[in-house]
C-alpha cells in the first residue's frame, strides 16, 4: 500500500509546538516519518512532549518566539543545528476578547505581535538563502474569525485576516523558490474551549456560535491532518490559499 502523505526525510519546524494543537501536529508528523523540530517559549512543556516519544527524529529548541529581537538569531541557530528545513508550521499566537472601547493600541499591538509579526519574522528568517529547501511548504494556523466577525473579537479577527493576507503576499513572492505558503481557517477546536474562558463563561453568543459549527467541535488531530496534507507533496500546486477547516461554521 502506498502512503501518499509520506513525509520521510522532510525536516519540519513546528512553532508553538507546546499547545494542544501543536502537540497533535507533532504526533501526526512523526507518524508520517518526518524529522520534527519543536519550537516554543516554554521549555518544560517541550521536554514533556519529547519524553513521550523518545525518538531520534524529534528535537526541540526554546527561545521567545514572540520577541522579535530573538527570532533572527534563534532561527539561524536552528539552521546551524539541523540544516535547511522542508516545512514550517506556525501554530503559535494567542486569542483574546475585548469590546471596542477597551481595544486600545497596546492590546492591538500584543495581538498583532503574537499572531502576525512573529510569523512574518520567522518566515522571513527561515526563507533566507540556504535555510529552506526548494519545494518546501509553510503552513500557518489561522481562524475562521478572519472571515467572520464576532462582537469583541476585533483585534483577534484582524490579526488572523492580516495573517492570511501576509500568506498570500508571501506565496506570490516565494513562488520563485517553489516555496508554498498556505493557512488553515480553523473553527472551534476542543482545546480552544479551555483557553477562551471569558467567552465561555460569559456565554457571549456562545451557544449560537457552536450551533453554527454544524459538524460539531473539531479535535486537534483533525487540524493536524490538514497541516500534514498541506506540508506533503500532495499539495505541491496549492499555494496562497486559506483552507477552511471549520466544521461548516462559515456556511
Amino acid at each position, binding site marked *: 500500500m502506498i502512503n501518499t502523505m509520506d513525509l520521510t526525510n522532510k525536516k519540519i519546524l513546528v512553532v508553538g509546538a507546546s499547545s494542544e494543537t501543536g502537540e497533535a501536529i507533532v504526533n501526526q508528523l512523526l507518524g508520517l516519518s518526518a524529522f520534527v523540530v519543536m519550537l516554543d517559549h516554554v521549555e518544560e512543556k517541550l521536554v514533556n512532549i519529547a519524553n513521550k516519544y523518545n525518538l531520534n527524529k524529534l528535537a526541540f529548541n526554546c527561545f521567545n518566539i514572540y520577541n522579535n529581537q530573538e527570532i533572527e538569531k534563534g532561527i539561524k541557530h536552528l539552521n546551524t543545528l539541523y540544516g535547511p528545513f522542508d516545512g514550517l508550521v506556525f501554530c503559535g499566537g494567542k486569542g483574546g476578547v*475585548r469590546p471596542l472601547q477597551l481595544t486600545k493600541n497596546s492590546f492591538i499591538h500584543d495581538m498583532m505581535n503574537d499572531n502576525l509579526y512573529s510569523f512574518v519574522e520567522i518566515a522571513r528568517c527561515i526563507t533566507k538563502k540556504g535555510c529552506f529547501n526548494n519545494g518546501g511548504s509553510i503552513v500557518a494556523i489561522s481562524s475562521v474569525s478572519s472571515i467572520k466577525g464576532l462582537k469583541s473579537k476585533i483585534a483577534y479577527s484582524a490579526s488572523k485576516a492580516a495573517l492570511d493576507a501576509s500568506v498570500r503576499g508571501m506565496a506570490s513572492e516565494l513562488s520563485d523558490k517553489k516555496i508554498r505558503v498556505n493557512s488553515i481557517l480553523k473553527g472551534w477546536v476542543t482545546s480552544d474551549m479551555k483557553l477562551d474562558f471569558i467567552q465561555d463563561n*460569559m456565554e457571549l453568543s456562545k451557544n449560537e456560535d457552536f450551533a453554527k459549527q454544524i459538524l460539531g467541535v473539531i479535535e486537534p488531530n483533525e487540524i493536524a491532518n490538514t497541516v500534514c496534507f498541506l506540508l506533503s507533496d500532495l499539495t505541491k500546486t496549492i499555494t496562497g490559499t486559506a483552507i477552511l477547516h471549520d466544521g461548516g461554521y462559515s456556511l
Partner: protein
Amino acid sequence: MTNQEKIALIEDSLEIDGGTLTENTQLSEVAEYDSMAKLTLIVVCDEEFNKKLTGEQIRNFVTVKDILDFMG
C-alpha cells in the same frame, strides 16, 4: 480609589450617564448591563485593579456594591 471614584469608573466604562448608579442599584435594573458590559467589567477589573473576574463571580453580582467590594 474611593467608592465614588469606582462608581464613576463603572459608569464611564459602561457608558452610563454620570450619577445614575449608587451602591444600592440593582444590576438587573440597569439596561446597559448586558453581556458586552460584563466583558468590559472583566477587563477593567484586570487592568485597573489587577483582579481576575470569573464568569461565576459575575453571575453572583446583584448590586453595584458587589462590584465595588470585588474591586477592593
